[in-house]
């Protein structure tokens, strides 16, 4: 009951914000609103008992994504100057889509229905057997890292490839001469270096953010969190430093070679765990064989692969941010 009331509120807000995004022709406003959109979404995930997802959506959707969009806006344009193209076809297509879904879901299980099929088949097995097979309190982590570890491996490679892509797109080609190089830009703006309060408070926060990131990383077995969230948080700390001190200093703190090495190394670590478990006579990513005691092996495996995930995500987010910020201002 309570959940539904909150949902009504939040979801309605969600739609309003989405319509706002659609209607505005100021791209900056659109990005701001999409930040709000993500926050509402995250709050909604939280009341739907998805704590891990809520954390991830907030860090990635509202944090990293907003920063990236702003970076791209700075390099491209601030206004959407195009008139909408022939609105009828898109309108009909999307209405048809919506109609089909509403038609399909009329008989779907209502929110929170305990008799829904999803709660009857695979899920109870995870909840029942996790304490015995893997023995970590956070079932999401258990499923993520062990039962569906292969998916997570794939996911790590998805961020890896995104990083490679951004690097090869923005790393290689020099910007045109008429754009302002970053150093020059740095000189002109001073970034936030002369703004005392943000600088002092912000810099004080950086170590805490990193520390909190490490907490999320290693506490992921017990509470919401894990490699993805932790990686994004640590990266957010570095990004904060770069925002305060300017890109060049940010890159002094975490050099580019280091962050991109981190990316590859994380992915490599994860795969290695799989390969080692193969070499030790198990299936790929079967952590049980890593130690004499299967449960202990699982713990070890999850710890290492979460570390790998954390490394990759940290590296990726920092690399991508630097790639955008180094591009200069046009």
């Amino acid at each position, binding site marked *: 009951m309570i959940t539904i009331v909150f949902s009504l509120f939040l979801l309605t807000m969600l739609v309003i914000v989405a319509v706002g995004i659609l209607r505005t022709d100021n791209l900056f406003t659109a990005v701001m609103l999409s930040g709000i959109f993500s926050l509402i979404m995250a709050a909604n995930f939280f009341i739907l008992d998805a704590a891990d997802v809520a954390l991830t959506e907030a860090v990635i959707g509202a944090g990293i994504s907003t920063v990236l969009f702003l970076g791209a806006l700075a390099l491209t344009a601030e206004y959407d100057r195009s008139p909408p193209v022939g609105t009828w076809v898109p309108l009909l297509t999307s209405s048809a889509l919506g109609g*089909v*879904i509403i*038609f*399909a*879901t*009329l*008989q*779907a*299980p209502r929110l929170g229905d305990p008799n*829904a*099929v*999803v*709660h*009857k*088949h*695979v*899920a109870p*097995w*995870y909840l029942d057997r996790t304490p015995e097979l893997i023995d970590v309190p956070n079932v999401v982590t258990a499923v993520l890292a*062990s*039962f*569906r*570890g*292969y*998916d997570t*491996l*794939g*996911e790590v*490679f*998805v961020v*890896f*490839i*995104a990083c*490679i*892509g951004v*690097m*090869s*797109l923005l*790393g*290689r080609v020099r910007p045109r001469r008429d754009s302002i190089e970053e150093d020059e830009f740095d000189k002109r703006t001073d970034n936030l270096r002369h703004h005392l309060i943000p600088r002092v408070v912000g810099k004080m926060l950086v170590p805490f953010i990193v520390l909190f990131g490490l907490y999320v990383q290693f506490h992921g077995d017990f509470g919401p969190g894990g490699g993805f969230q932790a990686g994004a948080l640590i990266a957010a700390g570095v990004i904060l430093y770069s925002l305060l001190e300017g890109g060049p200093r940010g890159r002094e703190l975490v050099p580019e070679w280091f962050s*991109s*090495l981190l*990316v*590859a*190394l994380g*992915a*490599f670590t994860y*795969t*290695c765990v*799989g*390969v080692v478990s*193969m070499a030790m*006579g*198990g*299936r*790929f*990513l*079967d*952590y*049980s064989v890593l130690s004499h005691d299967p449960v202990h092996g699982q713990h070890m495996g999850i710890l290492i692969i979460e570390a790998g995930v954390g490394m990759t995500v940290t590296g990726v987010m920092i690399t991508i941010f630097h790639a955008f910020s180094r591009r200069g201002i046009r």
Partner: protein
Amino acid sequence: MTLYDQLPALVVVVLLFTAPITYMLRLHGFPWFSAMAAVVTSFVVACSLAATTIGGETIIYEMGGWPAPYGIVLHIDALSALMAMLITGASSAALIFGAKSLADEVGEETAPAFFAAWLLCTAGLVGMVITGDAFNIFVFMEISSLSTYVLISAGPDRRALISTYRYIVMGTVGATFYLIGVGFLYMVTGTLNTADLAERVGQVEDIRLVLVAAGFVSVGLAIKAAVFPLHSWMPNAYTFAPNAVTVFIAAASTKVSLYVLMRVDYAIFQNSIANHDIQLTFFLVPLGVLALFAGSMLAIYEKNLKRLLAYSSVAQIGYIALGISMTSVAGLTGAIVHMFNHGLIKGGMFMAVACLALRYRTVNVANLAGAGKAMPWTMAAFVVGGLGLIGVPLTPGFISKWYLVLAALDEGWLGALLVAIILISSLLAVIYVWKAIEVAYFGEPRSNAVPVTEEAPLVMLIPTWIVVLAGIWIALDTSVTVGLASIAAKTLLGVEL
């Protein structure tokens, strides 16, 4: 656990394992070499998997040691093995072929990233075909898509960028549609394992969600597979990608989406939705027929040779769609064989085009006059490939069309119409292939053009001819391809082997 038992995982793990190494070690020439070594290893593994499954055996490999439906399992049967062979084979051939041209186009600095992306693209495609988990397909689909974007955007022309952007948008919408479909399926069954899904989806009482799920999955995959009229991203993506990349993605990537379409529709929906075969037919037949005509017509009026071949791919995908829609053993066999054969044909043709592009610095048909004399071997390869597109006997295209027409003949009067359509589009293929051949052999070079006298380098010619001859070989000895395909077709339709 012997090495033999680990083979199913190795086919993709080798690639995933090598990718970060390729990216990290920045030695001169190393990225290409390590990528090549990994892809070839994977190809060998795929071949041995095919050898195991040709008897009709299905291999189940439990990732992480967790049994289905709780963990993710790899599910390898004749069809997946055939596809894995196609993908890794195309990848190896394109990589070996592209050793020189990629070195020019990509550059030393970005080579590690590029070849890591290449490895991951191969890994993503292979991962999609061997997995037995609906969500895992999505993850690997994204690996392959993202890396394909990276590969295409490495193209030298600025239009490569806008093509990449369009591909990203279309590809993401397609993948998201697939994800929605899987979500609905999960809502009604509570599982993600394909075998388990196939079983449980049959017990669902309210069929509406399943129906809509089928719609979303089919449309999403049709976008990724460039089924007409959802193909708009594809011609430009093929045209502006680096040449070796075009060879690879044209040979393998759209086929994989068609594979998933086939797998999902036959394995999951066919048994649960009443008259699903008819619905599938009504969805795919018009699209296939339209693709045949529209693709061929666009190809006939196209001036850029790469885009001409891309439009021809649109048409050829139409054939595969028709084969899938016929829901008979012969039709499916034809579709599956055509996936493989078209991969070989198109791969070989794009290789020939890459050779031409290397010497002529352009791929406009009109500028290729005299290529028949200047580059006889390259053009001969192109001609053999072109004959394959038309479906002349002794070329791989003939085998697949043979099955498609056989299947259509079983469908009665409507089938006779399909036969007519298939044959008319073969004739259209004659026209567009001939257009290029005529200019190359009988055209007079323009007076202001720089004369080309040199044949393509051997490092490019030899792989091209290996692919072309492999095509001829599988047209003559069909035991492997047709053998695997007919077993696959029977498995999909649930017919006794």
